[in-house]
């Protein structure tokens, strides 16, 4: 009996020990992430009555979402904004991440941490900051008007302003993902290409880009998913008419208390994000991306 734990250990073997350590955390995530997702799928087929969910199975919530033009409009707007923001972040972040990875030398850790740090201040204080800088009565526009110039109209309560705000929130994900991918990329390969007569641009298209595609995909998805769900930025930068799918979703859990409809909106949001993630992941070829399974 005194040898209880070690006999147990011997009997378990590596597989058992692995599961003993890994499963509690995985179970925690499954229960408190998958559980909630499954429950909103169920509730999306119920209905709400004075802040209470009634198990009265129906598909009315989805009928409303896919027939009323306002909801379709919000969904389309959020999707287009998220796609454009992700692409803009991608185009901007690639040269930046490449520059840090290739030419940052001993400063590259400092350079990349400085790009990641602002993310951790939290959405609301970051929005407050960017609203103060480029909002309608933000410092940029006030300065222009003080010097007798026209304020910049396209950042005054517009969809563009919302897009810039969302990019401000999530661009650190993109730079970090591409940077981490480039960190494991062997730049010697480019020298080989050069010796064999490849132009820099061609070497980029045929070597650098495909070998770092996995980092790019992770960056795209990490920016797309929260951008698609953004509910706060539109309110403060987009103005009164700029509601997004996320902000209308959050209304269902606030003032109106229509939880069943809100659940259905959550399911739609989850489905759109999952389809995008799945479609992006299909384009990844682990062998070609230089992924060896050996960790960093």
């Amino acid at each position: 009996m005194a040898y209880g734990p070690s006999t147990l250990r011997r009997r378990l073997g590596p597989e058992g020990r692995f599961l003993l350590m890994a499963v509690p955390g995985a179970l925690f995530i499954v229960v408190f992430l998958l559980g909630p997702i499954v429950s909103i799928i169920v509730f999306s087929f119920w209905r709400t009555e004075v802040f209470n969910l009634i198990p009265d199975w129906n598909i009315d919530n989805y009928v409303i979402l896919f027939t009323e033009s306002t909801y379709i409009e919000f969904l389309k707007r959020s999707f287009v904004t998220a796609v454009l923001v992700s692409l803009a972040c991608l185009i901007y972040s690639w040269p930046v991440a490449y520059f840090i990875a290739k030419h940052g030398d001993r400063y590259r850790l400092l350079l990349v941490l400085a790009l990641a740090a602002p993310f951790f201040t939290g959405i609301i204080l970051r929005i407050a900051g960017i609203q103060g800088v480029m909002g309608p009565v933000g410092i940029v526009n006030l300065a222009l008007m003080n010097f007798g110039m026209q304020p910049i109209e396209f950042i005054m309560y517009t969809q563009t302003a919302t897009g810039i705000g969302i990019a401000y929130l999530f661009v650190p994900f993109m730079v970090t993902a591409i940077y981490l991918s480039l960190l494991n990329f062997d730049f010697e390969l480019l020298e080989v290409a050069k010796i064999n007569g490849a132009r820099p641009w061609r070497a980029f298209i045929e070597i650098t880009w495909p070998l770092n595609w996995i980092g790019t995909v992770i960056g795209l998805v990490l920016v797309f998913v929260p951008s698609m769900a953004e509910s706060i930025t539109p309110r403060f930068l987009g103005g009164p008419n700029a509601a997004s799918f996320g902000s209308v979703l959050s209304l269902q859990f606030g003032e109106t208390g229509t939880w069943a409809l809100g659940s259905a909106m959550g399911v739609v949001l989850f489905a759109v994000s999952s389809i995008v993630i799945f479609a992006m992941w299909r384009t990844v070829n682990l062998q070609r991306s230089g992924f060896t399974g050996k960790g960093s």
Partner: protein
Amino acid sequence: MAAAGAGHVATKGVASLLLGGLYLFLYAPIAYVIYISVNKDLIWPFPPQFTLEAYELLANSSTYKDALWNSVLLGLGSAIICTFFATMGSISILKYRSRWRGLIAIVYLAPLFIADLLVGISSLLFNRQVLDLPGNMGSAMIANAVHGTSFAFLIMLAQLARYDWRLDDAAMVFGARPLRCFWEVTLPIIWPAMLGAFIISFILAFNNLEISFYNLGAIPTLPTIAWGSLRFGLSQSPELFALAALVNGAVLLAFTVMYLLMRYRIVSFGHRD
């Protein structure tokens, strides 16, 4: 040859300009809130008239004091859960060759790909309808920890990728029990990674709005109070600037400490030079 060299220099120049532009974009709003926080005029603070009124307002506000305490509590609770699960998960993945490794890694990373808002509202309904839990500190800690565990797991994984697990085996061979082995062999080596994971998951839960808001019931935290103030307009709430300046300062300080630890090779967080 000369043309290629000039092209190379030009590309480097453009890239460094883009990098500078990104820093400006990311830090101008932070510089702005810090500058405004010490100024009298919130809207057009030129010429500057320095004052600490905003900080006095913040320090004397009992609402913000309660909210600060709640945020700290939420951050600590969530960070403890995150660090615990992330440590177990990352060690198991790196130490053992199991056919379940891929699946376990996917589960640990899945929360990264679900938006905060979705976690917030779905946890609210799950806790209320399925578990019959009211919105309170505990349910907010759990909901935040789901997200934080992924970040903590990534940090631990990157940091421990080079740890030599044979040290543990050696300790075991000499008869150390698993827990004792962890305490005396593994922990002294991996604590910086655990600290990094703890700090990051603390900061995330401390500053989170969308998950916390739906799971806290009526308990105020700093982000929810800030959200309320922001709705009345920036110029109405000088203490919001003071708060933003302090939180930004604290986050930047935490990152500076992590940078110095990494720079002087006390820890690597998976970074290689």
